[in-house]
């Protein structure tokens, strides 16, 4: 039934988010603990367990039950949080994620349930739960939970639960919910069937029933609400019953004669808001991509319309077209902003990476994160995760020294990796910085020569040598550690970044550390373009890179250290004739122009035949046949339907520098 599968999908989605949050919460325990954090963890486990069994994830529910037991022990003050518990919890969380990925009680889930990892985790959990009961000081880094006497006291609750009419159709299982309630303490259930219609009007798929529950438990309201988390369409009312003698222990008599339920509070559930806020909407990323594609088409159609209107000389039409253009621009900006996510979402993952790796490498490492609120297009963020993980691994494995060397060098034993992001113009700069030993220029040179990447006597500068770590097949580690031997090198990082139309930069100071900076465009989809003409062809230069345009005066040409320079006011600027760059016959046009762009930190003049104006450029990637041509960043469709190539100014700037060096 599609309704049911939609409910299962919703469960998987929510559970996945909860498990992601759980990882954060568990890592937070390392920095200190309080009642709230422990409760939050327990709630997640409890919810996943309960809803898991409701939606056909029995293996997951069974496993989570044991995990939950441990945190129940913590809540009740029987267990302490120590490094061992956090370790096993993180791994148990990973196991839960794996079970969730099985999509229910599949053969794969059964295999995982029978796996060694599962057995090991359960044994460890059991030894923690059982072990602590006898010897509460077993932990090696204990953070003792103090629970006040009041929190351990029993309280009585009256719960009225009235499922939505469609709940059964959507796969809700009241019996399981009731079983969970019963597990919390002493519960008494009464069925309210007063809504049940005469048999002739009965719709067997509809839910007409409600339950009245009196529960005596040491659990909090949150724990009770958590059980009903996925039954968020239901009317739910939870009230604490305060007896004149204060909190009591033990079963309590029913509040009224069965059947006489009309006196009980009317069902309404104001305090049990579902997890999502009504101010945000969850949308599959694919739909955003569709909108973006449509918008791209719209921008192109709008450009065509503009051309037709301009040719028509009809002022009314032109006015409407201008209005449409304004609206399309607004729509473009709004759509792009919807796709923007704070980079935090990917930075968050790295806490775990750093933690696991510092154990694996035996290096104590602190991760500092700055600028997590910086926003980037979702597609860029998704494709950044892998390269960033690799760079962090690299920093920790190769960059940071071991504690002894650090102390000998007068640095703190604990290494530091800083991950930062900030926006600068149309670019986002992401930097990974370590306070390690810095790049060993001579070791890199030797390795590059050995690998045939560099002639033995090449007079390369230190910064050029450092660039070689991005060359394919390069590795400075003398032995492949399990950390760096994962199949990606820095060349993969660079190509991933270039695939996002970004650049990589590296800076290093001997003994002080290394910083790799990724410069990425804020968005991949639509940019403002600057249209230029060469012969009869149009090309697009990204407007963000354009500084100014001047007439090309042959007389202003200068030669300086073998390079063609243009006198632009008081400065000399190197320039390239795009006819030369693109292997075109030299232009014979009398009046040509120079577009001054800024790229890769330098100014560069690009000589063109003419300037055609600005447009919104929908970037289409080039096919495999053209992807590797230097100087081209993609292609786009103009208003008249013609295809125009987009110029990659960064590559041209590099090329100009290399040409300079070779002629010098």
């Amino acid at each position, binding site marked *: 039934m599609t309704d049911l599968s939609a409910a299962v999908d919703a469960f998987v989605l929510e559970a996945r988010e909860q498990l992601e949050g759980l990882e954060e919460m568990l890592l937070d325990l390392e920095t200190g603990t309080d009642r709230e954090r422990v409760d939050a963890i327990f709630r997640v486990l409890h919810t996943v367990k309960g809803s898991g069994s409701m939606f056909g994830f029995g293996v997951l529910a069974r496993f989570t039950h044991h995990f939950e037991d441990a945190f129940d022990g913590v809540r009740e003050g029987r267990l302490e949080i120590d490094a061992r518990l956090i370790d096993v919890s993180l791994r148990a969380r990973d196991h839960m994620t794996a079970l969730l990925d099985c999509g229910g009680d599949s053969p794969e889930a059964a295999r995982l349930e029978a796996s060694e990892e599962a057995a090991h985790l359960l044994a460890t959990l059991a030894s923690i739960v059982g072990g602590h009961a006898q010897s509460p000081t077993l932990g090696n880094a204990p953070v003792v939970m103090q629970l006040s006497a009041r929190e351990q006291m029993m309280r009585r609750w009256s719960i009225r639960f009235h499922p939505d009419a469609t709940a059964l159709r959507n796969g809700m299982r009241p019996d399981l919910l009731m079983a969970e309630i019963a597990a919390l303490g002493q519960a008494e259930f009464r069925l309210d069937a007063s809504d049940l219609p005469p048999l002739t009007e009965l719709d067997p798929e509809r839910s007409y029933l409600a339950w009245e529950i009196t529960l005596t438990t040491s659990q909090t309201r949150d724990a009770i609400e958590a059980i009903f988390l996925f039954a968020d369409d239901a009317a739910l009312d939870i009230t604490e019953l305060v007896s004149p003698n204060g909190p009591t222990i033990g079963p309590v008599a029913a509040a009224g004669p069965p059947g006489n339920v009309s006196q009980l509070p009317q069902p309404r559930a104001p305090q049990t808001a579902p997890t999502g806020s009504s101010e945000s909407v969850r949308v599959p990323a694919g739909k955003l991509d569709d909108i973006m594609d449509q918008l791209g*088409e719209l921008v192109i159609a709008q450009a065509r319309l503009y051309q037709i209107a301009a040719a028509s000389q009809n002022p009314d039409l032109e006015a409407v077209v201008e209005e449409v253009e304004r609206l399309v621009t607004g729509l473009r900006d709004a759509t792009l902003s919807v796709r923007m996510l704070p980079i935090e979402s990917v930075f968050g993952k790295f806490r775990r990476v750093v933690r696991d790796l510092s154990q694996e490498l035996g290096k104590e490492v602190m991760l500092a994160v700055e600028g997590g609120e910086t926003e980037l297009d979702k597609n860029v963020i998704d494709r950044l995760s892998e390269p960033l993980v690799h760079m962090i691994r690299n920093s920790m494995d190769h960059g940071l020294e071991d504690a002894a060397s650090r102390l000998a060098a007068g640095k703190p034993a604990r290494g530091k990796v800083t991950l930062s992001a900030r926006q600068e113009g149309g670019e986002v700069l992401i930097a990974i910085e370590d306070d390690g030993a810095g790049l060993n220029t001579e070791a890199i040179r030797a390795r590059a020569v050995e*690998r045939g990447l560099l002639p033995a006597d090449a007079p390369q500068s230190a910064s050029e040598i450092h660039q070689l770590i991005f060359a394919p097949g390069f590795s400075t580690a003398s032995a492949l550690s399990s950390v760096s031997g994962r199949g990606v090198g820095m060349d993969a990082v660079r190509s991933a970044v270039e695939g996002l139309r970004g650049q990589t930069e590296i800076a290093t100071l001997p003994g002080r550390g290394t910083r790799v900076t990724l410069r990425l465009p804020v968005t991949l989809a639509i940019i403002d373009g600057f249209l230029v003409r060469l012969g009869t062809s149009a090309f697009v230069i990204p407007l963000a890179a354009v500084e100014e345009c001047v007439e090309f005066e042959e007389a202003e040409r200068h030669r300086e250290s073998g390079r063609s320079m243009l006198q632009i006011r008081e400065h000399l600027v190197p320039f390239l004739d795009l006819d030369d760059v*693109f292997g075109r016959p030299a232009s014979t046009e009398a009046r040509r122009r120079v577009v001054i762009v800024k790229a890769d930190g330098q100014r560069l003049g690009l000589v063109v035949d003419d300037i055609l104006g600005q447009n919104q450029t929908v970037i289409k990637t080039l096919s495999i*046949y*053209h992807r*590797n*041509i*230097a*100087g081209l960043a993609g292609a786009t469709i103009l208003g008249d339907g013609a*295809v125009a190539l987009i110029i990659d100014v960064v590559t041209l700037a590099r090329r100009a520098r290399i040409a300079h060096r070779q002629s010098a």
Partner: protein
Amino acid sequence: MQIVNQITQKPGTAEPEMMLIFRLSGNVFALPVGEVHEILDPMPTTSVPNAPAFAPALINVRGAIAPLIDIRQRLRMPTVPADDHARIIVLELPVNGVATRLAILADAVEEVIETDRAALKPVPELGARWPEQYVIGVARYGDTLVILLDTDTLFRPDAGPSIQA
């Protein structure tokens, strides 16, 4: 006109297959219809600077940008000036495992016929005229020989400059 299934040499399935027949530089070629996306009238192209001669330009196929492939480069054929019959054949097929839309030029598109690969004659019969790796075989089409192109190899991009190990 019909294919005469007279020679059976290359082992293959007996399944009849639909083939698109087109002319280019005085020769007749066939491509599997399943890979043909559409056939368009000639349109302006945008040449790509520094591109391989095999993939010299881009065209706009209703809002999508497709590379224009000149198969004459691989089949070692001269360029003959196009006339009114010239067409652009748009294909959709995997290139290096990625579904790719690309276009080729044809001097004329003839028709779609049914044949089966089992009826194909292997290439060596014709001598060394056709680079063997791009051709599956030949069949008779009326009085002429039809060359069935191997789209797996024909559209494979040139191997990039090999990285020094």
